[in-house]
């Protein structure tokens, strides 16, 4: 009598014991590999590699934050920074005036700006990772798909009707941004889902069309505004990281961190979704619910980010792609690592934006687009080669 096959959740005896009917060389090697402590050494993501990569990136982030805090129109030395941070945190008073001016520059201008840059970059990269897995499209990105411009349109409409000038601005602008990005994502999803498989190029085409429509509407709104407001609008649209006051910044941080953590909870599901929709469902995933959750999270995060920093493009595409090349495709590492790298990238890009052309300041969106556009073209050409 042969051994009965096991319960699906327990290892089957028939599988763990080599059987005489199997071709011996083939199965023999398999049993030995399985018996080894780490059967897939180097072939899969392990907990230790996860911690190694994440700590290295966290350390690098810290170093870069310190670097970006030093640079600016006025150079602030590292020792000075530590001293000022110390006194700000533990309330030492009575510094000379020069120190106080430096303190204002560092604590009221540079620190929140560096922080906002890091946060916005992290969120855009994380949303990019999620959208790429969900749409099974390595070129997906909130900017390319028109999600960012949807959010921008929402904010522009709010500003046009004066919501932006009231006290409620804090809570209402991100809500309008969210509504805009959600509409954009729903249109993208409808267009993508009306095909059996999601063809890369038609989803991108949908994004191009949405971008065109939303940009036209934004320009219309900007042109009927009074000149000073429309100038501010243009500067915001091109992407700027002028930081809000600390209470607003902390609220935004808390909101986005919750979003990031909720996205992080989906990483295993994102792995499976990357296999394709039908295999994912056959593995027991409720794909419709997952899609709704991820679209909603993406829209919420993009809306908030855009309402504060305008349209900063391509981070959601370049960063996940580059990180994937180095750490592999497993979203358990790809998503948090992309968030850190995206944060570093935008923080450094913004430091360049405010230091390279002193005394004028370049919108940071210009720098990311100049870096990302050519990369996008390269990917498109490269993918075309690969798919042919």
């Amino acid at each position, binding site marked *: 009598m*042969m051994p009965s096959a*096991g319960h*699906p959740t327990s290892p089957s005896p028939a*599988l763990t014991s080599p059987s005489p009917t199997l071709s011996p060389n*083939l199965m023999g090697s398999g049993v030995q590999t399985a018996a080894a402590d780490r059967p897939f050494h180097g072939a899969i993501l392990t907990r230790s590699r996860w911690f190694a990569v994440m700590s290295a990136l966290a350390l690098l982030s810290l170093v870069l934050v310190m670097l970006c805090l030093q640079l600016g129109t006025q150079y602030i030395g590292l020792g000075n920074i530590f001293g000022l941070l110390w006194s700000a945190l533990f309330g030492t008073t009575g510094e000379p005036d020069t120190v106080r001016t430096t303190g204002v520059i560092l604590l009221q201008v540079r620190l929140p700006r560096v922080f906002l840059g890091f946060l916005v970059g992290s969120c855009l990269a994380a949303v990019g990772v999620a959208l790429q897995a969900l749409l099974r499209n390595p070129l997906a990105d909130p900017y390319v798909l028109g999600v960012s411009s949807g959010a921008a349109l929402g904010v522009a409409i709010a500003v046009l009707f004066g919501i932006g000038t009231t006290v409620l601005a804090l809570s209402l602008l991100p809500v309008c941004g969210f509504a805009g990005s959600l509409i954009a994502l729903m249109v993208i999803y409808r267009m993508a889902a009306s095909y059996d498989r999601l063809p890369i190029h038609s989803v991108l085409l949908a994004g191009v069309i949405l971008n065109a429509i939303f940009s036209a509407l934004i320009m219309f709104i900007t042109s009927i505004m009074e000149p000073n407001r429309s100038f501010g609008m243009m500067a915001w649209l091109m992407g700027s990281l002028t930081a809000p006051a600390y209470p607003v910044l902390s609220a935004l941080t808390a909101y986005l961190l919750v979003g990031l953590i909720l996205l992080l909870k989906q990483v295993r599901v994102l792995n499976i979704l990357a296999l394709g929709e*039908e295999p994912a*469902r*056959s593995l027991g995933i409720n794909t419709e619910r997952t899609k709704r959750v991820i679209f909603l999270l993406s829209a919420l995060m993009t809306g908030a980010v855009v309402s504060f920093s305008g349209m900063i493009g391509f981070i959601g595409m370049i960063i996940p792609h580059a990180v994937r090349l180095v750490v*592999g495709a497993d979203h358990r590492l790809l998503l948090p690592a992309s968030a850190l790298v995206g944060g570093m990238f935008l923080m450094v890009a913004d430091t360049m934006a405010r230091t390279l052309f002193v005394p004028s300041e370049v919108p940071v969106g210009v720098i990311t687009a100049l870096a990302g556009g050519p990369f996008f073209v390269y990917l498109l050409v490269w993918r075309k080669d690969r798919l042919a």
Partner: protein
Amino acid sequence: MISERGEHALAETGGGVDLRAAYAYDLGGVHFCYGSTRGPDVRWVLRDVTLQVRPGEILGIVGPNGSGKTSLLKLLAKLAAPQTGNITLFGCSLAGLSQEDTAQTVAFVPQESAQLFPFTVAETVLMGRFPHRQRSRWSLGFGWEDQEDCQAAAQSMATMDIAHLAARPVTDLSGGERQRTMIARALAQMPRVLLLDEPTAFLDLQHQLDICAVLRRLRDERRLTVVIVSHDLNLASQYCDRVAMLKDGRVTAVGSPSEVMSVEILRDVYGCHVLIDPHPESGLPRITLPGPALRSHH
């Protein structure tokens, strides 16, 4: 044909189904179409399909293009639901089972799977362990693979002869290697039922034979039930225990290969004349297309 189908069979239940049921699948009066059933011109993809799949058999589903083979397989995988009729999986209504429970019992390998993200082969195969992982509400749900998962994956990779590819990204594989990876992924799921859509389409002769041998071995050892959709009539004839022939969404014939693979049935279904003779080794029907001389004579 099926050896050792005795009393030892499966005293357990798994994934919410009773594995002692008489049939792995029991389909009664199944009608299916994509989209709405309202309106004057409903295109039924499957009409009144009644079919039983026995536990521990290899059932081949064959038929011309567009006869509904793949749709039938999707119904079995619970990827689509029939408009009328019912399907039971080991005695349980498939409609009443959750997707998670189904995934613990049934594994599905789709026809072709272009992969866009560079997961390694080992990572891809380990995804088959997903239905068996605990999902805690408070952890981030990373669900790191444990020893048991890795063993199951290593075993199924050895079975599919892809152990040496473990660290290769799936985007770099040949079609055949990718197909074997996907079958290994399904085997790592430790299913009781394996649903395969054209599993040999991208494979060379050696690997076609290997896969068929592996499926028969799993049938014998684990009493795995296998349903294969295939274009290859000879493969179905030689390696399936039973064959179901589909035409225009209806099952026109079902039975052992010797019963189904007849000149009359094939002419009726495919609309062309074929030659059938006993296979020199197995004695099972061997289907050959007529040569040019005979066709012009016809």
